[in-house]
């Protein structure tokens, strides 16, 4: 398990704040689901913070009258993440790919400042987007030396490439009593990423590979929550083009899909039913780091008898604290 320096530094302060934030958490959940929940104490909370398709947007959009002027930027995002970590016990910070390409920073430095900024913000896992291949696979592997978080991707086979052994199909992170299983999926490379950049990377079926990892994480590794970082895209007009929507419906053990690629600004996370009839939450927050996605999960203790029963998750807009 990896922890950023910031997190270690926060530990004492966190313990101090723990009782206060647990009390707030209990109040919030009571408002949402009422009495039944209260019987299932203890309350366990996890806050997932997420970005996608930041596309080298290190500075805010310039103040030039364009639509997004002044929005985004890593310095402001870092400050927000820091303040959430200071008041929230369990935070998981992830990105769904296309870290690279889009501003001159990338043309000049090939991803070095992007990676350094993400390491400094304490990202804990990312998946790979098609544009992360843009300066070649070797460059991506080189820039990864600057970070301490893993690249999680189940459906790219990097055998006989410079990325061999540098990405993993799953990753487990513990947050207090909670065990979070992460996997990731990337988009079809053919017709999108030029052959000379993709090298020997083999694209495998994302639904098959993500399901394989999710089943392992849920049933063997005992994860309480399985999160799939996806760069497939939210959904497409072409009904059979694989997307987060299709992955959600055809999956069995994924609880959350954090998406990217289509630059979709979802008003709220969308809930789908998986093969078992259980809820899968899909979210995506546009692009360029204009928004930081936040999902605060409340957990209940599993009852032994209904492990295979379909589960539903009650979802609502976060009220101000």
């Amino acid at each position, binding site marked *: 398990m990896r922890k950023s320096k910031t997190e270690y530094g926060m530990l004492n302060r966190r313990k101090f704040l723990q009782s206060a934030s647990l009390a707030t958490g209990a109040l919030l*959940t009571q408002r*949402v689901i009422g009495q039944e929940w209260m019987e*299932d104490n203890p309350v*366990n909370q996890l806050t997932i913070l997420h970005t996608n398709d930041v*596309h080298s947007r*290190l*500075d*805010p959009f310039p*103040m030039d009258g*364009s639509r997004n002027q002044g*929005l985004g*930027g890593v*310095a*402001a*995002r*870092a400050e*927000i993440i820091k303040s959430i970590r200071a008041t929230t016990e369990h935070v998981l910070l992830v990105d769904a790919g296309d870290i690279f390409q*889009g*501003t*001159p*920073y990338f043309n*000049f430095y090939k991803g*070095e*400042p992007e990676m*350094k*900024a993400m390491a*400094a*913000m304490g990202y804990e896992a990312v998946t790979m987007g098609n544009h992360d291949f*843009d300066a070649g696979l070797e460059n991506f592997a080189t820039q990864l030396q600057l970070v301490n978080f893993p690249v999680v991707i189940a459906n790219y086979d990097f055998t006989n490439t410079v990325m061999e052994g540098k990405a993993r199909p799953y990753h487990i992170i513990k947050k207090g*009593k*909670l065990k979070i299983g992460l996997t990731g999926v990337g988009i079809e490379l053919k017709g*999108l990423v030029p*052959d000379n950049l993709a090298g020997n990377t083999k694209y495998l079926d994302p639904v098959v590979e993500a399901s394989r990892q999710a089943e392992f994480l*849920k*049933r063997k590794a*005992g*994860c*309480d929550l399985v999160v799939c970082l996806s760069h497939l895209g939210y959904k497409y007009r072409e009904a059979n083009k694989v997307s987060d929507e299709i992955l959600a419906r055809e999956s069995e053990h994924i609880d959350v899909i954090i998406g990217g690629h289509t630059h979709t600004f979802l008003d709220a*996370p969308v809930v789908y039913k998986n093969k078992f009839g259980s809820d899968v939450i899909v*979210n995506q*927050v546009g692009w360029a*780091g*204009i928004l930081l*996605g*936040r999902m*605060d*999960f*409340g*957990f*209940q*203790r*599993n009852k*032994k008898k209904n*492990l295979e029963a379909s*589960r539903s*998750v*009650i*979802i*609502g807009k*976060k009220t101000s604290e």
Partner: protein
Amino acid sequence: MSMFSSASIRIIGLLTICTAIACTGSYSPATVQYDKVRITTESPKDKNLEQLLKPYSDSVNHSMNIVVGELERELEKKLPEGTLNNLLADAMQVEASKAFGVPVDAAFVNYGGVRTSQLPAGPITIGKVYEIMPFDNLLIIQELKGSVLQQLLNRIAERGGWPSAGVQFTIKDKKAVDVLVGGKPLDPSANYIVANSDYIANGGDDCDMLTPIPQQNKGVLVRDAFLHYFQSITAAGKKINAQIENRVRYAQ
């Protein structure tokens, strides 16, 4: 405590552990509260990140803040046709003609490759041109048979219309119809010189019909072609502008 009850406790304890190891986690998600934190100019900034970025941004900004032209009005990227579409396709056609020293019949820019949807009126910097076209793709030309050009136009039609110069067509049932090249109906057996990025000529965006056809390449990046085009307009004492000309339209 009796032996009996202590044993039951142990058994229950064991069962719990088995459940946890063999089957699944101890907890399931029950509630989610979501939020989107908007990062704005008012958001306070992390000093360490600002420090980390400074050497990079100083160097980048030094070159990127150079102004290369003045936009007469706001330009937009749109389907099937937009003012920004036309400006960029014209730049491809003009600059390809200059670079290769031949008349170029048609030029295209793939819609997804244009990474800015709107340019405000006013000065345009080198940095902005990098944002329009961040990719280091090369400007290439190919000699296409009319029938292959038609296939390419059909693919463009299927995708809703791309920035196009030198051609005019209508999109009907995902196909390009009533195609004019240089104002004349497309001749399937004629040869046309077509400018594109190497990304498209190598089969990107499913343009497989172009991959077998030889490319000419002078090492000019598409982005540099745009820059040269803007600089030449500025050098002529003009402002940058483009119009909607019904180059690409949807059938009624």
